[in-house]
């Protein structure tokens, strides 16, 4: 998983959705404990780990990972 | 005019307008913001002016300016903002300027919270600012009463040339209740303001409005006049409601929102056969001291209980009124907690069954 959402903090504001260059974030159809529709990414593989979502999220919901590059492992 | 359903804060605004107040200078603060918003919307409609000041300090001094010009003018705030107005209120009082100042009090001290409270009693009744001055303080208990008292506040302000305070709390400010407005008042034109600094055009030598008097003897003279005025107000402007006190053995003293709750508790206690009544000061200054004292001198009155949303402020005035003739108990809640009918009922039981509070 490249992007992980701390779902309970999410307020469904849609900003990550709006700013994801890959347009892969959506608001889920369920409600979280606060009563908001939390953001989620299904197509994790399309994520470029650009962290735009995380930078625009006002509620520090999102952690972004990047797969360690093969090259590095080799070197 | 029929009844309308409005928030208390809005009722204050509309009543002021009906009383001929077309100028309002204010600064937002919860729980009185609806009043500011109401004035912002309504005043331009009646050809008046609403101006949001940069602070409470500024607002009260804009009021000082407008009052100097002889118009009916109002400002409002809530506890911390009211504290900031103290210097200005002292100036208004000293300069004999009429104005109406609303305090929709909230939980304190400090930033506190935005729930209702009555812990600004001292601040408004004892002259929270510097120097020997008082301001008449009116404390409505229903929205309909707001209609009457707002108008009265302007009348008293003009008649005695003094700032007048209308004291409420978050409950009164934000609740809705049907009210009926009176027709626009004409009485304001009774007060000629020949002292106002409006430019001398065609009316004689320059006028000055000031509270400075570097000479001690003449400042004392100014103070003497001020005190004389206060004596007249004490004489003329006391307001108090009494409820089921005729045969009461126990009297509860409460004002504003709390008085409403006490009324319900009194009803419940009466149903249970207890002879208890409510004394509701409407003017907190002048305080209905002689009224309360007279009641206390009646043989059957046994005990008084003061209930406040404070740690005990008005109770001092009650004690000063009765000077030990009957014992004065106190029950208070704090920080925005509103006493319930049941709590007060329990306190009444304690009065009767001798448990000391």
């Amino acid at each position, binding site marked *: 998983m490249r992007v992980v959402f701390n779902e309970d903090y999410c307020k469904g504001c849609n900003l990550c959705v709006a700013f994801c260059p890959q347009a892969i974030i959506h608001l889920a159809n369920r409600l979280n404990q606060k009563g908001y529709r939390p953001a989620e990414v299904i197509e994790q593989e399309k994520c470029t780990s650009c962290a735009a979502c995380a930078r625009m999220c006002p509620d520090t919901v999102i952690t972004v990972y990047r797969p360690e590059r093969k090259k590095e492992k080799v070197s | 005019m029929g009844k309308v359903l409005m928030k208390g804060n809005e009722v204050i605004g509309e009543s002021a307008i009906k009383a001929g107040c077309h100028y309002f200078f204010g600064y937002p603060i919860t729980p009185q913001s609806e009043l500011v918003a109401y004035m912002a919307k309504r005043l331009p409609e009646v050809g008046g002016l609403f101006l949001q000041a940069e602070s409470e300090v500024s*607002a009260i001094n804009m*009021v000082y*300016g*407008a009052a*100097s010009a002889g118009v009916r*003018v109002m400002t409002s705030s809530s506890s911390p903002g009211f504290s900031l107005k103290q210097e200005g209120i002292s100036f208004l009082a000293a*300069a004999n300027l009429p104005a109406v100042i609303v305090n929709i009090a909230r939980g304190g001290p400090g930033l506190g919270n935005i729930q209702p409270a009555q812990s600004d009693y001292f601040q408004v009744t004892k002259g929270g600012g510097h120097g020997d001055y008082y301001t008449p303080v009116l404390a409505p208990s229903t929205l309909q009463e707001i209609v009457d008292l707002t108008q009265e506040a302007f009348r008293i302000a003009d008649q005695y040339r003094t700032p007048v305070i209308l004291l409420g709390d978050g409950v009164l400010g934000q609740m809705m209740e049907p009210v009926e407005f009176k027709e626009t008042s004409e009485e304001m034109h009774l007060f000629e303001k020949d002292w106002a600094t409006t430019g001398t055009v065609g009316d004689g030598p320059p006028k000055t409005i000031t509270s*400075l008097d570097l000479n001690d003897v003449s400042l004392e003279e100014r103070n003497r006049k001020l005190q004389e005025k206060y004596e007249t107000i004490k004489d003329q402007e006391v307001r108090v409601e009494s409820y089921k006190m005729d045969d009461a053995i126990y009297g509860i003293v409460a004002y504003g929102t709390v008085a409403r709750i006490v009324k319900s508790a009194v009803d419940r206690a009466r149903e249970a056969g207890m002879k208890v009544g409510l004394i509701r000061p409407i003017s907190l200054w002048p305080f209905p001291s002689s009224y309360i004292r007279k009641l206390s001198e009646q043989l059957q009155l046994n005990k008084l209980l003061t209930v406040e949303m404070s740690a005990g402020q008005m109770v001092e005035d009650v004690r000063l009124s009765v000077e030990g003739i009957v014992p004065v108990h106190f029950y208070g809640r704090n920080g925005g907690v509103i006493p319930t009918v049941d709590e007060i009922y329990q306190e009444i039981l304690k009065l009767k069954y001798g448990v000391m509070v």
Partner: protein
Amino acid sequence: MKAVFERTSGLIDRETHYCPGCTHGIIHRLVGEVLEELDALEQTVGVASVGCSVLSYHYFNCDMTQAAHGRAPAVATGLKRVLPKERLIFTYQGDGDLASIGMGEIVHAAARGENITVIFVNNAIYGMTGGQMAPTSLLGQKTATTPEGRAAQTQGLPIRVSEMLATLDGASYIERVSTHDVPHVIKAKKAIKKAFQNQKDEKGFSMVEILSTCPTNWGLNPEESMQWVKDEMVPYYPLGVYKDHSYKGDGV
């Protein structure tokens, strides 16, 4: 013989309480003359502030209201907003009053484009209370509260009020003048006149900052004080027009 210079009817005929040589007196005269020349005395309400000029209501020959320390612009706003628009409202404020405790009020009056005239007397000190530092006291200046001289590290740097207020869109006319010699006094009067004329023309907030002396608290005699204005104050507080543009256009 024809009188070429007479006492203005803009001032009440009465002695002032100012110290010998204090230029508050000159500035009073200029304001009085301007109001007389504009035939505006009956239309004017002045606002006295708290400072040595607190008693100015004894001197100006028009209606006067005395404001709390720093609050003259708010009081003037109250007056201006409720009186007929022909009325001219001015404040007369010292630098302690206007630039220290009253900073919020003056900035906001300017930002609101309040159609008033502000006479701002900058004497780089608190005169009335006995010579404490003002926000406009110069670096190195010894005052009752900077006995070793004002130091940037502790007390920061003097505020150039005119320059600061000129950044506000609401401000219409701002000029700094001085009173340290005859030509400058004449210029000061012109500026004051313009500041009142602007108000008549409903152009909005107008302020004249006037460099002034305080011989008593500067510890200089009146002549030396004039020299001090010229040598010390003018370099830090350059004279000139800082703003002359009304967003309200030429009258509204």
